[in-house]
Every structure is written in structure tokens, then in C-alpha cells.
């Protein structure tokens, strides 16, 4: 039996923390102290539950009740009603948007039903700042078994047999990378953890580090043993302060319990880990740029080969693996490679974590078996498109990926299938777009990001992306020509073929992909000077619908450029030449008298 009667788990992921979830932990504790309830109830923070759109989230065990959108003001009520009286606090329970049914239990929610959590296994279950909770759920057992029962080659064989591929985007087989790093003879080798998650809208790695930092540390030590390294570096961007704090705590605890440092598990094997903070450059997610940054040089990539597994950190063999990749390692060791490779598709085993964002009802972090279709993700887990809008596309792979249209919603997702339909897995960002999103504008957004993040080392990427961005800007402002489309395409192909690293080689993807699937939208911007989605401000020409206008002057009063004429009780007129398309008149009108193109 437990030593406590009920556990109150409060989401301590960055999203919920920003909505005062840690204050809620304090508030619970204060009430428990005041009412002398500490022997009956225990409150703790956990990592992210994943259902970020419903946060802050509180879960109570053993009742298995899941409260959503909780505020600090709700805490006394939860204590009084739920904990002391045994009654649900109805207004804080999740209501299914489709059936309207109240669902108190997590596993009844569509968001969780199709998920299978391996990398996220401890997120929302344990206190990430307490190593004992990690140990309680099998923590460091895989490391113990590896160091006391297996030789390094066995470990590599297990990881190879599991079929685990790099989750940072490249999809390179992890066991093979370890094998390649083990082979060279060197006086020192290194294990690097790539936590430089930079895709807009992606927060998978941050959540794993915030919710289960020990799983990454444990895997790094296992990797060190497998490849023959005694030093590990976690490269994490400084803009992840909570993840850094929890990593620092976890590293301190791991040293205290002997899972890091000298002679781990009395095996003769020693391993040290330290953290290196990155300044937030997207290109540092590329492994050679990352290594240069850790060495103290500019974060610029270098040509491969030689690969880091042969010549990495200070020219020594270095295995660079992503956070999510590491988080899969302990369960693979404990449950065996066959358990892992039985999940997923033929070439892409296991599960993948995605951050589901954009125009979708259930925004959050999900983990599904490879081979799950986009339709299942968007409609069953994601709950469909909000406000009755129509699904248009989903952007996977962030600024390196492409769009997937409704025609491919039933494609099982894995590394190969996404490339076949013109996108890529990337690190797992998934942005859903609806009919109000302009695809030209979306392409421009991603290109603006990549040209801004280009390190400038190679000309195709440094100048090519800038020229492409300028052309897109011209098109969205209504000055594009058909020649521009040809230039966009040829520039895009050239940049892909001639750039030095993955950033440049993939930067044109969003443009080429939207041109392939939404060419009509490009034509509308160029030939008709119209944005079909009504998103490109320069192309918006608002008009007054005369029969609806009562001359209330509301639109005229809010227009920032005074381009609306007409007195009280007169039909108003918008000067289209002077109009900047801000939409203030449309928002102010209460009589549906403004036409938005």
C-alpha cells in the first residue's frame, strides 16, 4: 500500500507553468499544511501531460480524475470538494467537444486513446526533480543491466535490432551510428545529446527533458559504454530554462546515487556529463555546427564526410543523438529489441512524438506508433479543425519540410512515406492549416525563418534564400509576375542541390511543396492580385455592402488611415487605394456591412 492516500499531480511543463501551475502546487501544500492533511494527501509537480490546449492540468490518484484548465482560484474547491468530500468538481472536468460527454478519466479522451507513450512514458507520471520516483518506475535498471551483464557490442546489437532511428529528423539508424563511433581507435570519444530543438512550433525534446531528464541521462551513459566514451555533453538552448534547471538537478542526483561519475555500478566504467548552453541558432541543430559551437567556435556546419562518428568534438569520434532518441533507449534495453521493432512500420520502428499545433482542436504533445495516419492524428487525436473550418494541409518537418494535403491524409506516417509525398518527418513539428491560411504566406513565413537562421557560410543558402524570400514578398504584395514563379522554382532547386548543410538543402522545401500542391494560389496572387484565403494584407480590398450599412460611423472611427468617408446615417465608402487592409472596419462593424475578400 502507498504511504499516502491520494496523490495530486500538477503539470509542471512550461505551458502550464506559465499559467501558474507551480503556484497551484504551493497552494495545495499550504492548504494541506494548514488543515493538517499532509498524512492524507501529497501534491507534486510532474512533466507535461501532453494535452497542452487544456492546461493547466491536475490529475488525482488513485481516483484517476483529470482536471483541465484549472486556475489558482480552483485549488481550495478541489481540496474541499474532491479530496475531502469525494465529489467531482464538474466544471473542471474535460468535456468532449463532439459528444458533449463529460470525461473524468484520461484514457477515455480521444486525445489519449490512440497514443502509445514510450519516450513520454514518465511525463505526467513522476516528479522529474525526484530521482527516487524515476527509480520507482524502473529508472537506471537498464543501465545496471548493461553494465553488469552486457558487453558494449551486445548493447549495440540490441539497439540495431530494435530498428530505432534518429528522432531529430535525419532518421539515421541509432545502433549503426553507435557502431560507427565505437570502431575507430581513439584515446577519447564523446556522447553528445542534441537538445537544440529549433523548429517553430516544436516542443517535443523540451517536454521530455522537463518531464523525464533521468531517462536521457541514463541513455547517455549506456551510449557511452557502448561506444567507449567517458564524456557526455548535452547541448541545449538557453531559452529552455526549466529544462536546464531540471537537467542540472537530475545530473546532481545521478552523481549522488553513483549513476554518473567513477566506477558506475562497480563496473569499472566511468562517465561524466555536462551541459553546454546554446544561444538559440537554428543551424546548431545540425551536428557539425553543434560540435563547433561546443568547441567555442561559430556555430557553422562543415562538409561531411568526415562524419562526427569518425572526427567529431576536437577531432575525436563523437556520437550525436537527439533527446527523444535517447529517451527510447532504456525501455528497449529492458523489454528487448523485438518488443520495440514489433511497433511501427517495416522501415520505421517504434513510436514518434509530435507536437500538434495550428488549426486543430486538441493542441499538444502526442506519441503514436509509426504508421499512424494523419487522419487519425488530426481528427481522432487532434479532434478535427476548430470553428467549422475546412482542413487544408498540414506542415510536417518544420521549415525543412513540406505540406501534406487532404489527398494524403490516409498515408501511414513514417520516414519514407513522408518523403514520398514531398515532406519529411523532421523532428516532429506538425502544424495544421485550414482554409483561412494562405499557402504563399506560409511558404514566406518559413523562408523568412530559414534565411534569418542561415549561418551565412555558403552562398546558395545565404543569398539564395534571401532572393527567394524577396520574390515571395513581391508576390504577396501583388507585384509578382509569372517569371517570378519560374525563378522561385529554379532557385529552390539550385539551393537544394548546392547548399553545404541540411538547413540550406531543405530550406526551399516549403516553397516547392506549396507550389506543387497549391499552384492555383500562386496564380491568384499574380494574375488576379487576390489572396484566396484572405490572409495577405496587401491584397485585401475591403468594401462596404451598401444595403447593410446604416451609417453608424463605427468603421470610420476605427480606420487608422481615415480612408472611409460618409456621414451619420449615410452609406459609407472605402477608398480602396488608401486602404491598408488592416481589417479594423470589418471587426468594428456590427451589421455585416463590410465585405472581406
Amino acid at each position, binding site marked *: *500500500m*502507498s*504511504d*499516502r492516500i491520494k*496523490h495530486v*499531480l500538477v503539470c509542471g511543463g512550461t505551458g502550464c507553468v506559465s499559467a501558474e501551475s507551480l503556484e497551484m502546487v504551493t497552494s495545495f501544500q499550504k492548504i494541506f499544511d494548514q488543515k493538517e492533511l499532509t498524512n492524507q494527501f501529497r501534491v507534486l509537480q510532474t512533466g507535461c501531460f501532453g494535452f497542452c490546449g487544456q492546461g493547466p492540468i491536475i490529475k488525482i*490518484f*488513485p481516483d484517476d480524475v483529470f482536471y483541465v484548465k484549472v486556475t489558482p482560484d480552483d485549488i481550495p474547491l478541489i481540496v474541499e470538494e474532491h479530496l475531502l468530500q469525494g465529489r467531482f468538481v464538474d466544471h473542471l472536468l474535460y468535456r468532449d467537444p463532439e459528444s458533449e460527454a463529460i470525461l473524468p478519466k*484520461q*484514457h477515455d479522451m480521444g486525445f*489519449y*486513446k490512440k*497514443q*502509445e*507513450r*514510450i519516450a513520454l*512514458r*514518465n511525463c505526467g*507520471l*513522476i516528479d522529474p526533480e525526484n530521482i*527516487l520516483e524515476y*527509480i*520507482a*518506475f*524502473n*529508472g*537506471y*535498471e537498464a543501465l*545496471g*543491466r548493461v553494465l*553488469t*551483464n*552486457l*558487453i*558494449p*557490442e*551486445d548493447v549495440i*546489437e*540490441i539497439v540495431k535490432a530494435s530498428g530505432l532511428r534518429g528522432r531529430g529528423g535525419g532518421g539515421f539508424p541509432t545502433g549503426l551510428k553507435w557502431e560507427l563511433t*565505437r570502431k575507430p*581507435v*581513439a584515446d*577519447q*570519444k564523446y556522447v553528445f545529446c542534441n537538445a537544440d530543438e529549433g523548429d517553430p512550433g516544436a516542443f517535443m525534446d523540451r517536454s521530455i527533458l522537463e518531464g523525464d531528464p533521468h531517462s536521457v541521462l541514463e541513455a547517455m551513459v549506456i551510449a557511452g*559504454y557502448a561506444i*567507449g*566514451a*567517458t564524456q557526455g555533453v548535452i547541448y541545449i538552448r538557453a531559452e529552455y530554462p526549466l529544462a536546464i534547471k531540471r537537467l542540472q538537478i537530475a545530473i546532481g542526483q545521478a552523481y*549522488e*546515487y*553513483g*549513476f554518473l561519475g567513477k566506477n558506475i*555500478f*562497480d563496473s569499472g*566504467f566511468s562517465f561524466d556529463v555536462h551541459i553546454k548552453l546554446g544561444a538559440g541558432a537554428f543551424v546548431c541543430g545540425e551536428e557539425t555546427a553543434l560540435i563547433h559551437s561546443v568547441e567555442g567556435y561559430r556555430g557553422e556546419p562543415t562538409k561531411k564526410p568526415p562524419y562526427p562518428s569518425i572526427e567529431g568534438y576536437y577531432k575525436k569520434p563523437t556520437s550525436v543523438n537527439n533527446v527523444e532518441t535517447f529517451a527510447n533507449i*532504456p*525501455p528497449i534495453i*529492458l*523489454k*528487448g529489441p523485438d518488443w520495440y521493432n514489433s511497433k511501427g512500420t517495416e522501415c520505421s520502428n517504434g513510436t514518434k512524438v509530435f507536437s500538434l499545433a495550428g488549426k486543430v482542436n486538441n493542441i499538444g504533445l502526442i506519441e503514436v506508433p509509426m504508421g499512424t495516419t494523419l487522419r487519425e492524428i488530426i481528427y481522432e487525436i487532434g479532434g478535427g479543425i476548430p470553428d467549422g473550418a475546412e482542413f487544408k494541409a498540414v506542415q510536417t518537418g518544420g521549415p525543412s519540410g513540406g505540406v501534406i494535403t487532404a489527398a494524403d491524409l490516409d498515408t501511414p506516417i513514417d520516414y519514407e512515406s513522408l518523403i514520398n509525398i514531398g515532406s519529411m518527418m523532421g523532428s516532429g513539428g506538425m502544424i495544421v492549416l485550414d482554409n483561412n491560411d494562405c499557402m504563399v504566406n506560409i511558404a514566406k513565413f518559413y523562408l523568412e525563418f530559414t534565411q534569418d537562421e542561415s549561418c551565412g557560410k555558403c552562398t546558395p543558402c545565404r543569398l539564395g534564400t534571401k532572393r527567394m524570400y524577396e520574390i515571395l514578398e513581391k508576390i504577396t504584395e501583388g507585384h509578382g509576375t509569372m517569371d517570378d514563379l519560374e525563378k522561385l522554382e529554379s532557385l529552390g532547386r539550385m539551393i537544394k542541390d548546392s547548399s553545404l548543410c541540411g538547413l540550406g538543402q531543405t530550406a526551399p522545401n516549403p516553397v516547392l511543396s506549396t507550389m506543387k500542391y497549391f499552384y492555383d494560389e500562386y496564380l491568384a496572387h499574380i494574375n488576379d492580385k487576390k489572396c484566396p484565403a484572405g490572409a495577405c494584407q496587401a491584397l485585401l480590398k475591403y468594401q462596404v455592402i451598401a444595403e447593410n450599412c446604416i451609417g453608424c460611423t463605427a468603421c470610420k472611427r476605427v480606420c487608422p488611415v481615415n480612408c472611409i468617408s460618409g456621414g451619420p446615417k449615410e452609406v459609407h465608402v472605402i477608398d480602396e487605394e488608401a486602404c491598408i487592409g488592416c481589417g479594423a472596419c470589418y471587426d468594428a462593424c456590427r451589421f455585416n456591412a463590410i465585405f472581406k475578400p
Partner: protein
Amino acid sequence: MKITSLSELSMLKEQEFKKVQLRLYEDDYLPDTTRQQKEPAASEADLPEKSDARGGLS
């Protein structure tokens, strides 16, 4: 507190698990590693055969 063997870790795990086991129940979305707690623990025999040599570290 320094853990130097699997048996020490196992004892600590057993002790700590008692404090958190109320968070477990049979569900598909729950981590397999936690559900495993309700099943017989995997034995050493489940692991790949131990090789003769420990292998040298670089």
C-alpha cells in the same frame, strides 16, 4: 547514497515503488515499463546471451 549493484537498485526500487504504485492502473496509454510492474519481472534470461569477454573500453 551510492548504488553499486543491481540488487541495491532493486531494493531501493521496491521501497520507492510502494510510495507511487497508486498511480498505476491497467491502461493502454500507460507506459509498458510501468504496467510491467504488475507482471512478473523480466528475468536475466530475457536478456541477450552474455558474451565471454567484457570488451575493452577505449
